[in-house]
């Protein structure tokens, strides 16, 4: 894709995070498939980390009809703002930590938990995944998002020292991580492998079903982030869900560790209209396709756009 010589958009306003919004959209669509597999998603409880904008809560209510919602906010100052900004009265904002919540909250309803952290990978995250595996019932969902770059404690360390640190602090779930994965530019790969192994390992002893990974996503608005998560399903439901995921998201894997990169498209509105039409016509060599090719776009750009077309948000500027 042709790019400006130097991007000036390194830091994107929190309100305008197109890649994050694409991720949310994909996650909602993946959850929606649960309805086709006999899961009554509307009656689920959603546990998330809504901060003071609650975007995920808005989407899950609008598109899935969920009304039982809990937002975890550990920061006392942010808690006051979260209470002030909460968009729906049925969202129960709790001033607690994830550890406390998972240890003390008792819930009989089917559940979707999304631990959307700001920070990097660490032993606490792995422990949270273990706690969720103990808590989740058959038919429940859980997702974890963490930042992709090395945590601050590892920033200045060599690759070998990074790998040693990860192994020392997180143990066996680091087993598949290689020296190449912990290089600065590829660290999200290490994060993904750790999260994937942590989920697989945490749910492995469960005899009432198995954990099916639904999303393994990397995206970057300003900073690279990685999301891994899925559902704890009985064998029959798992086969049905896998089949539907394969149809709806042929580029996502539900049975092996494969990270999907949600690409950032830096397109003008005119270019985007051309992409919309070029991606939705049967004629592969359409006039729009020719125009975009002349502008320097490649076949891989069309493929990625085609995969994400339904999830890319459109932002418009208004003067008020």
């Amino acid at each position, binding site marked *: 894709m042709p790019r400006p010589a130097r991007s000036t958009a390194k830091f994107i306003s929190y309100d305008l995070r197109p890649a994050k919004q694409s991720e949310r959209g994909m996650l909602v669509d993946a959850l929606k498939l649960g309805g086709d597999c006999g899961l009554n998603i509307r009656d689920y409880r959603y546990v998330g980390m809504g901060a003071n904008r609650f975007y995920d809560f808005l989407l899950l209510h609008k598109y899935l009809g969920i009304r039982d919602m809990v937002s975890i906010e550990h920061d006392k100052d942010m808690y006051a703002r979260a209470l002030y900004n909460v968009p729906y009265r049925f969202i129960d904002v709790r001033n607690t930590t994830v550890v406390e919540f998972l240890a003390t909250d008792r819930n009989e309803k089917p559940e979707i938990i999304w631990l959307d952290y700001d920070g990097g990978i660490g032993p606490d995250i792995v422990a949270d995944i273990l706690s969720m595996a103990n808590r989740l019932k058959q038919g429940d969902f859980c997702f974890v998002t963490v930042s992709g770059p090395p945590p601050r404690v590892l920033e200045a360390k060599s690759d070998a*020292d990074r790998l040693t640190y990860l*192994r020392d602090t997180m143990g066996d779930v680091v087993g598949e991580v290689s020296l190449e994965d912990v290089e600065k530019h590829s660290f999200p790969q290490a994060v993904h492998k750790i999260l994937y192994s942590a989920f697989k390992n945490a749910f492995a002893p469960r005899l009432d079903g198995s954990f099916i990974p639904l999303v393994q996503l990397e995206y970057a608005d300003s900073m690279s982030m990685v999301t891994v998560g899925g559902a704890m399903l009985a064998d029959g439901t798992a086969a049905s869900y896998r089949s539907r995921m394969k149809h709806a998201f042929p580029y996502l894997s539900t049975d092996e560790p494969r990270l999907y990169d949600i690409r950032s498209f830096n397109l003008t509105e005119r270019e985007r209209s051309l992409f919309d039409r070029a991606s939705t016509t049967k004629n592969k060599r359409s006039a729009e396709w020719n125009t975009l090719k002349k502008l320097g776009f490649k076949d891989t750009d069309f493929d990625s756009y085609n995969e994400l077309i339904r999830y890319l948000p459109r932002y418009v500027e208004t003067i008020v």
Partner: protein
Amino acid sequence: MTNTVKADASPEKRLFISLLTRDIPLVAAFLDLVDNSINAAVEPFANRLRTASEYLALFGDETVNPAVTIEMTVSSTRVEIRDTAGGISAKTAEDHVFKFGRGDEPGSSSDRLSVYGIGLKRAIFKLGNNITIRSDHIDGGFDLNLQVAAWAQSNEQPWKINISPRKPVDPGKTGTTIVVTELYDEVSRRLNDGVFTGQLRDAVSRTYAYYAAKLVTIVVNGQVVDGTKIDLGENHASESFNFGNVTCAVTAGIGVPEGGAFRDRSSGWFVFCNGRAVISADKSTLTGWGGGGLPIFQPKHRPFLGTVFFVSERPEELPWTTTKAGINEDSAIWQTARRHMAAIGRIVISFLDSRYNDEGTEIASADLQSAAGENRVSVLSAAVASPRTFSVPAKIENASVRIQYDAQASDIKRIAAHLKKPGMSGSDVGRHTFNYFLRNEVGTD
């Protein structure tokens, strides 16, 4: 007159298989299969692997390169282990390989990692119901296909397993392939638990640190596994002793830090039998910590690295258990080794203990590394070197002394406010007031 009748005491296959496989962890079962392959791979070198010195000499021989590849492919539905060693002849298979235990038969003089004649069977019975083995040998190998459940139901005596002979092959085409399918549910779950392959690679890397990359190439799911390198500082203690047909070398010193710190996984005692690691990084009573001549292991002992290297041409005389994942604690040779371990370990531990006193750390990390010595040596070189003792470095007198005392928080705040620096920490206030007194009351030099 009393009549004597013979009561039935024959073994029952299902119980036997159940008991046999229950005591071995899954990773150890895979290592049992690797042991068999390595045992076959080192056969041509057997007359160069009789003493610890010979192990070191072979390791240093640059003309020796891995001639055998051992490849494991593991998924939740199928396990395959394939090696390119000399294979098993149909005759050996018929007479020995599938017999449970060796009885009174002596082992082969070339055996180094094959001990009790039980590992292969236990490993494959542990994994699944459908077992296929194909072995090619220069004298003719064999094929085997075994359905374990059906075999276990038959009552034939003595126990037999059907094999079909294969034609002889040329020397470059020998090898053995074992495939297990219809994996047991527990095994399948474990193999698919997200961490098993990593644990297996780690175990292979530690267990075959000596053999990997020198005599064999070991591959797990397409990835070559290198042996874990274990070095210690040149300032170390070592002793050796003979016990029957076994030689034993014990070494203790200071390990090598990784990433600026001594790591838990690289500290404690490492025990090798014929070059195979049996115990790694042990800090328990088994190796003498907490009552066996050494104190209870504490984080301050993390720089400690000790190795015990047992070697014998008669592997059954080594103190390993049948799973080779543990030590026969009651064996006389292990009890003797433990006394040597405590004797030479104590001086290193005593030095590490002296790093700390009531006033905190006495010996800085840099001094610790200097105490270990400038150069590193492999644990194998250390094990075969002449006996030596750990040279305790002279204590360096610190030029500075740490001062710690309690003060009222309100007083600290008052001083900070007086100095018009309300954000000052307690230590900054302490440093300021100390310097003030030194400057104004005592006077500086």
